[in-house]
């Protein structure tokens, strides 16, 4: 699959993180892996791209980080969605839905 442009990736990154955290708390590496797997590699986070975003989202109150011991016995900082994060997820989903519907009307994306 062709890579998405950088700007679209950047705009969708927060939504992708919110979506994977909706189901369960995950630590940073798991978040990156889950997104990469679930999008067949279209969305790909590195350490450098992921953590500034995670910290910004935590500052905004959308996520909450807490140190937990994993099944492997190592400590990792796991992120979970807050009520504000769930609200933001719903709002972002609506916005992206509007965005894609508009593109679809413009260029018939669903038939492309």
């Amino acid at each position, binding site marked *: 699959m062709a890579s998405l442009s950088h700007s679209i990736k950047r705009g969708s990154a927060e939504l992708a993180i919110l979506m994977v955290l909706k189901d369960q708390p995950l630590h940073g590496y798991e978040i990156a892996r889950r997104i990469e797997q679930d999008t067949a590699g279209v969305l790909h986070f590195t350490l*450098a791209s992921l*953590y500034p975003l995670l910290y910004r989202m935590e500052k905004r109150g959308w996520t909450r980080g807490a140190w937990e011991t994993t099944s492997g016995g190592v400590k990792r900082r796991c992120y979970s969605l807050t009520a504000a994060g769930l609200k933001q997820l719903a709002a972002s989903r609506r916005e992206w839905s509007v965005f894609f519907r508009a593109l679809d009307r413009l260029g018939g994306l669903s038939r492309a």
Partner: protein
Amino acid sequence: MRDWSSVVRSRLIALGIEAEREEQIRAELAGHLEDAYADAIRRGCTEEDAAARALAQVPDWTRLADAIRRADQKEGPMSPDAKTLWLPGMAALGCAAAVMLGVPRLLPASLWLDPRATMPMTAGLLLSYLAFGALGASLSRRAGGGIAARLAAGIFPLALHVSIFVTVVVAAMFGDRRSPEAIQINFQLRAALIFIVIPGVALAVGTLPFLRDGAKTRASA
């Protein structure tokens, strides 16, 4: 086993944030590199290759430090709600308050008693409330407010009306200068219609042009 903590310590420059927070960030980044390394080993990479893959996640450590420093700071002095709801709402409310206080002082008292002036004055007030509703909603939209925030900012002046209405009604019912008429429910409903419902409808109608094009605005963002 590589010591990823020392790798991060040696490459990531001081973030200049609270020491405890900085230590947590360094530990978290080291954990990420450790997981990436272990994952690559599990996939069959050699130790050297796995380490190179893990380190390739950060092409520029100085830039990463800058990005983390910026992300860890509070974003501006205003919250999104302040920008999209409270400020636009207060602007609309300020205009409404200016009209409520200014019009009785500027217009001669005789005009209030002239039946011929009732309609033009009512129309003028309603038109001004349409404009205030539009002002609140447009400022909210400009700040990136959603439809609910735009509507709330537009009808924000109603807060002033409701607070005055409640104060007047309570004072008329229980104050020193009680008015028997004020206790009657019909009077209160009529007063609410004139002082709250009609201005509220005018404000809400004023917001409409700025609610309808929400989809276009967001799609073009």
